[in-house]
Each structure stands twice: as structure tokens, then as C-alpha cells.
């Protein structure tokens, strides 16, 4: 299996999060425990309201847990940090910056020399297939291209862990499939630890080594499914017998949770 012996990169230790709402408090996460190994690709699925985005924001350091902690390489995280990159569903590109300036942002913050930053940015722009669009503004790009820029931007800052919050959720089916393949290729090359949130079970299985199924209200981990399909995976993998088996299994669990939420 995918590196049983590998180091634990990210440790989520009994994370509990509640929100103080108008009608009392809501528990978003109720004691989440998870060890993520170095270079691992994790996908989290679950119905809306299961706290999967909350969990990602806590790992990113954008939210603080009510109790519990997150450790990166054994060190408790505090706030945001460049070793944890984030790709948002809504791209979050800076509209006043060109593609290359967007990709250079993280390097600029690190005070990387300009020419070096430019070269790194160009490398990642090329890697996501946007060569020739360096000087375009985000408004001139399609949704898929925008998300490619966001991925290049996250990679260029050279994080150790990449957190992706339903990054392909707003894209059409064809673009989504294309970006999945590209992301897998990049992951195999760059070997970053990926924590990927999605509501698309197919997407989770094609990408992940382990799929985390979350249950709602309060959010916690319901089940962890090992995806024992070897890489490289392609779109043809989706018609494999094993794929279909896993899909039925995971889909069933997620659907039950969905019904729970509806009640």
C-alpha cells in the first residue's frame, strides 16, 4: 500500500469546532482524528454541512479549532503558513494582477529575487498548460484556466501540503476531467501531500489513495476507504470493476449521510 512506512506529515488530533450562532451553538466538527502521510493524496467526501470545508480551513490556519490541534511534521500549527498552500473553489485570483503576477505572488512575499521568481512562475504556468497567457488578466480567462492559474500559484509558493477546497466544483464536466488528469500528473511529479475536498465520488476515487467519508451534524469521520487501484490512473480506470465496486460502496455511505441531513 501507499507508503505505510512513510512519515506522518499532517496529524489532525481530536479537532473540535463549534460556531456560536443566533440559536445557540452548532457543532461543526466533533473530534476529528486523522493521520496523513507524506506525499499522500487524501480526498474528503461528505454531504454539505459535514464540516469538510471547516476542517480544511483549520488545517490551513484560516480558522482556529475550539479544541484539539493540527500538527505538521510533529509541530503544532499556528495560523497560516506557506508550507500549507490552498486552492479555493472560487479561484481567488487577484483580478488586478496578470497571470504571471498572480503566480509570482507567493514568491514575492518570500522576497525571492525577481528574475528567479519569474522563472519559477513561468515553469508552473507552462506546467498547467497556460504558456502564452502570462500577461493575460484573470477576466480574460475561462473558469478552467483560472483554476489552472490558482493551482500554478499554489505550487509556485512551494508548499509541502496542498489543500484543495472543491477546486473543480464550479467547472463543467469535461474541464473537470481534464484538470483531474493534470493534477494527478503534477502530483506524481511533485509529490506533495494533497488534501482534496470534493462532493464528487468519481473524482475522489480517481485521485485519492484514501477517501475519507464524513458524516454530518456533527461532522466527524465516518469511514476511511483505501483506494487500491494502482497509478497511473486514467479516465478508463472509471470503467474498471474495482472502481465501480468502490464507487458503489462509497456512494452508498455518502447517500445515507445525505438522507440523514435531509431529515
Amino acid at each position, binding site marked *: 500500500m501507499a507508503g505505510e512506512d512513510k512519515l506522518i506529515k499532517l496529524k489532525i488530533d481530536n479537532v473540535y469546532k463549534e460556531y456560536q450562532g443566533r440559536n445557540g451553538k452548532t457543532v461543526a466538527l466533533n473530534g476529528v482524528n486523522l493521520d496523513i502521510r507524506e506525499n499522500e493524496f487524501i480526498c474528503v467526501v461528505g454531504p454539505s454541512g459535514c464540516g469538510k470545508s471547516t476542517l480544511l480551513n483549520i488545517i*490551513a*490556519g*484560516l480558522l482556529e479549532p475550539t479544541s484539539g490541534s493540527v500538527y505538521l511534521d510533529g509541530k503544532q500549527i499556528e495560523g*497560516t*503558513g*506557506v508550507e*500549507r*498552500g*490552498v486552492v*479555493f473553489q*472560487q479561484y*481567488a*485570483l*487577484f*483580478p*488586478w*494582477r496578470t497571470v504571471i503576477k498572480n503566480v509570482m*505572488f*507567493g514568491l514575492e*512575499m*518570500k522576497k525571492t529575487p525577481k528574475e528567479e521568481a519569474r522563472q519559477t512562475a513561468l515553469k508552473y504556468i507552462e506546467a498547467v498548460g497556460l504558456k502564452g497567457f502570462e500577461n493575460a*488578466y*484573470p*477576466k480574460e480567462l475561462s473558469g478552467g484556466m483560472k483554476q489552472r492559474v490558482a493551482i500554478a*500559484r499554489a505550487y509556485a*509558493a512551494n508548499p509541502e501540503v496542498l489543500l484543495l477546497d472543491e477546486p473543480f466544483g464550479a467547472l463543467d464536466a469535461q474541464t473537470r476531467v481534464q484538470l483531474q488528469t493534470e493534477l494527478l500528473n503534477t502530483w506524481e511529479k511533485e509529490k506533495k501531500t494533497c488534501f482534496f475536498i470534493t462532493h464528487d465520488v468519481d473524482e475522489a476515487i480517481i485521485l485519492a489513495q484514501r477517501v475519507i467519508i464524513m458524516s454530518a451534524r456533527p461532522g466527524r469521520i465516518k469511514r476511511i476507504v483505501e483506494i487500491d487501484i494502482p497509478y497511473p490512473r486514467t479516465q478508463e480506470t472509471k470503467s474498471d470493476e474495482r472502481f465501480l465496486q468502490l464507487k458503489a460502496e462509497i456512494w452508498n455511505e455518502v447517500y445515507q449521510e445525505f438522507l440523514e441531513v435531509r431529515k
Partner: protein
Amino acid sequence: MNNEKKKKIVINDKVWLLISLCAALLVWYLLSLGKSTGRSFPFVEKVVPSVGTMIERGAFWKDIGSSMFCVAAGFGLGFVTALPIAFLMAWYQPVQKIIEPWINFIRNIPALGYAPLLVIIFGVGQKPAIILIWICTFMTMSITIYQGIKNIDVTLIKAARVLGANDFDIFMKIICPATVPFIITAVRLGLGAALTTLLAAESTGAQAGIGMRIRSLSNSFEAAPMLMYIILLGIIGLILVKMVDIIERKLTGWQEKIN
């Protein structure tokens, strides 16, 4: 846009402008023929020469100069005060809670209403006029900029933070550029407010000025120069809007526009 498909006549925008101008002249001409409307709307041949008349009287340039000085000074003061106040309101809630209701309250009172108060304090002349324009432009611009800052997409701030930006970076590299379009909108609204307030401002006993002149010419029933001054106000407004358009295109070309 309105080109007929069958004949395929494409009319240039400049030609449209010309047609529009001719239509306006026609309406103006018809108005000048009417018995009662003709008294208010003398036709071009009387209005245009009145520029010369006013220059001869030594009023024309003085009026424009005085009005533009009041607008520039009042607007300038309004801008440099609105900007920091808007940021303070967005940053510190107590500032916003205390100030915003009053800005909204005073903003809705026509300037003409409290102009006399300023005359009592500052006497007659340009001073109360400038202060009145300052107040009006400040109100409009501070609220507009404040709301703009409030509406900045928080995911942009989050994205910057996870890429290693500190508070100062976020202010300089995210908040500032994201606020530029709202500042430009504020400038546009502020200039509009400055021009509309000008008339109230010059009712405070100004010695010269476009607004003051329109009033005095109306008292002496000189319709032609009066109409000329009114058109002049319109032209000045148009020039200011065009100037803002140019600045906007330069600074916010990156902005997504809904066409």
C-alpha cells in the same frame, strides 16, 4: 447596434452623435419659436454671442475661474478627508458605528438647507462655498469608499494570507488595489455632488461664479447669457466625467465588466 440588417447600413458612433446633436438643435429651435418658451430659450444665434458679451463685461473668465476653484478646492478637501475616514470606518467598528449614521443623516439634507449656517460662521465669499462643497463631497465619497472596502472579497485576503502575506502586504497589495474601482466611483459621484452643490454654494453671497451669475442674470431677465451659462455647466460636467473615464480605463482595465 441599430443598424438595419437588410440594408446593412452601419452608422458610425460619431455620426450618431451628430444626429443626436441635430435633433437637440431642432427641439431647441422649436422651443425658441414658441411665444412663452421662446423667452427662456433664445436660439443659438443669440446664445453663442453672449459669450462675447460676458467676456466684455469681464465676468466670463472670472466666473469660470471662481467656480472651478471652489469645485477643485472643495472636492480636493473632500477626497483627502474621505479616504482616511472610509478606511478608519472599515477598520475600526466603533468609528463606523459613531460616524456612519450621521454621514447618512446629513447626506440626505439638501445643501441649500444648511448653506446659511455656514455663511453665519464664515461670512460671505468663497470660503463658505468651498466648505459646503467639501461637506457634500466628503459625505458621498466616504460612504462609497467605505462600502467598497467592506465588499472586498474575503477569499482574496485568505488567498494572500496562505501565500505568506502579512497585514501590511494585505493592505498594500490586496485592499488598496481592490479599492481602486470604488475610489473611482466615489470620485465620479463626488464630482457630480460638487457640481450640484456649486449652485447652493454660490448662493452664499459669492462675488463671481457660474451659479451666482445664473442667479443674477435671471434677476435681470437676460435669458441668452443665462442659457449660455447653463449649457456651460453641462459642458464642464461632461468634461469632468470624460476625465474620470480616462483615469478609470487606465487604472481598472483589469476589472470584469458586465456588458
